[in-house]
């Protein structure tokens, strides 16, 4: 009973869904306001999702309806577990998980993997192009993301266990400096992970139709959108855990700090989306290979030297 409550109410489904939806709506609203438009209401993602639930499904006849719904459903379960793995206040005292950052990292890759599989499975040429692009991008930004995670886990002391809780509690002056240095790399890799504007290469904002999701419709599309919202919630709160003293204060204060951090991250995303244009795949890989991965590695080495001496 307690577990079901965790899974469906507070750190689980409802919290992640509502937080993700509000973050997405907030981002769209801010983006519109920066372009001097009025913008959709903040609750717009919920309308979109609930509309999709009633729609008919038109699926390609080469794919069975069971697989059609299973592919987007698996990452939903994965992401729910991923939300449970975060040390949210009011929940981390009683939770029996070890808040493993590596596991969260793998679970947040599931939606993208499912999109790639879906793109290839649907046999639509646009889906295949989108899936191929997503699969190529996957390699580069995860390099940066792994560097960031490793740098942060070096902060916590000798038994390096990739525990999110101990990373969030590392708060010395040197730690703060290193954390601030890793912020741009975190933002860049998350931008690419969420397929936001400078890196919106796989779906290209309706230019190669919808990328891997071209053939998705009805409930399957709703599940994909739900995955996206859960991902937003996970990365928003991950930002707060990394860079804000969430677990150092009282639980109420910590929860509001998480919300503050998540909304601040999406404010930055709206800004970046507005002043950048989409890169080509070659430019994207050059940016990551020549600039971001080497400098992230440099920061990792510096941290290691400082911490072990």
């Amino acid at each position, binding site marked *: 009973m307690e577990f079901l409550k965790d899974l469906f109410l507070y750190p689980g489904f409802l919290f992640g869904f509502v937080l993700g939806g509000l973050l997405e709506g907030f981002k769209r609203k801010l983006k519109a306001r920066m372009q001097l438009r009025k913008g959709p209401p903040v609750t717009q993602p919920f309308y*979109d999702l609930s509309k999709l639930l009633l729609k008919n499904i*038109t699926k390609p006849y080469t794919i069975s309806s069971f697989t059609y719904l299973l592919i987007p459903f698996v990452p939903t379960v994965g992401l729910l577990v991923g939300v449970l793995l975060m040390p949210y206040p009011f929940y981390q005292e009683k939770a029996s998980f070890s808040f493993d950052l590596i596991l969260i990292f793998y679970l947040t890759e599931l939606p993208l993997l499912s999109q790639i599989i879906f793109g290839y499975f649907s046999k639509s040429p646009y889906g295949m192009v989108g899936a191929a692009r997503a699969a190529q991008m996957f390699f580069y930004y995860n390099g940066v993301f792994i560097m960031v995670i490793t740098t942060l886990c070096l902060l916590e002391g000798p038994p390096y266990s990739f525990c999110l809780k101990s990373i969030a509690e590392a708060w010395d002056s040197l730690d703060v400096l290193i954390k601030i240095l890793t912020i741009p790399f975190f933002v860049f890799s998350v931008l690419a992970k969420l397929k936001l504007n400078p890196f919106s290469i796989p779906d290209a904002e*309706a230019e190669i139709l919808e990328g891997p999701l071209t053939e998705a419709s009805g409930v399957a599309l709703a599940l994909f959108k739900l995955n996206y919202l859960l991902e937003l919630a996970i990365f928003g709160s991950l930002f707060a855990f990394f860079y804000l003293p969430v677990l150092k204060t009282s639980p109420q204060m910590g929860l509001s700090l998480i919300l503050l951090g998540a909304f601040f991250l999406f404010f930055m995303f709206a800004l970046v989306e507005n002043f950048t244009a989409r890169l080509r795949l070659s430019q994207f890989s050059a940016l990551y290979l020549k600039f971001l991965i080497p400098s992230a590695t440099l920061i990792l080495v510096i941290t290691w030297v400082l911490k072990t001496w």
Partner: protein
Amino acid sequence: MFLDAIKQFLRYSQKKSLWVFHVNTGSCNGCDIEILALFSSKYDAERFGIKLVGSPKHADILLVTGPVTTKSRDPLLRAYDMMPKPKAVVSVGVCSLSGGVFAKSYNVLGPVDNFIPVHVYIGGCSAHPNMILEGLLRAAQILCEEEELWSF
């Protein structure tokens, strides 16, 4: 009782979130430019939840500009068939209503409503973005209230 309330809410959200797929069946691009102007700051259509999507499988509304030509008839019919129900069709501009200046041309087969059922007509050469917005909202009303569209 409870299920009815949920169903009512889902239908209401259909009204608030319209995903539009735009098909050009051989128009002169005048109406296409006006449709792009619809998403600019002045006529901001996104505040009503209207969004251009790339795939007909995501769309609620098919926005057709231009007369149907011999080459574009099959793509139009296929895009219409791919759209999940409930769906509505909005035809924009004089060309899609009657053929306009292209009528009686050797490759023009006729207006759009000879091929697929059209729910809202928007006249004008080219249609004013404001009227396109009004037509889309009218189509949303039809999509929300028409019982016929929901039987599948």
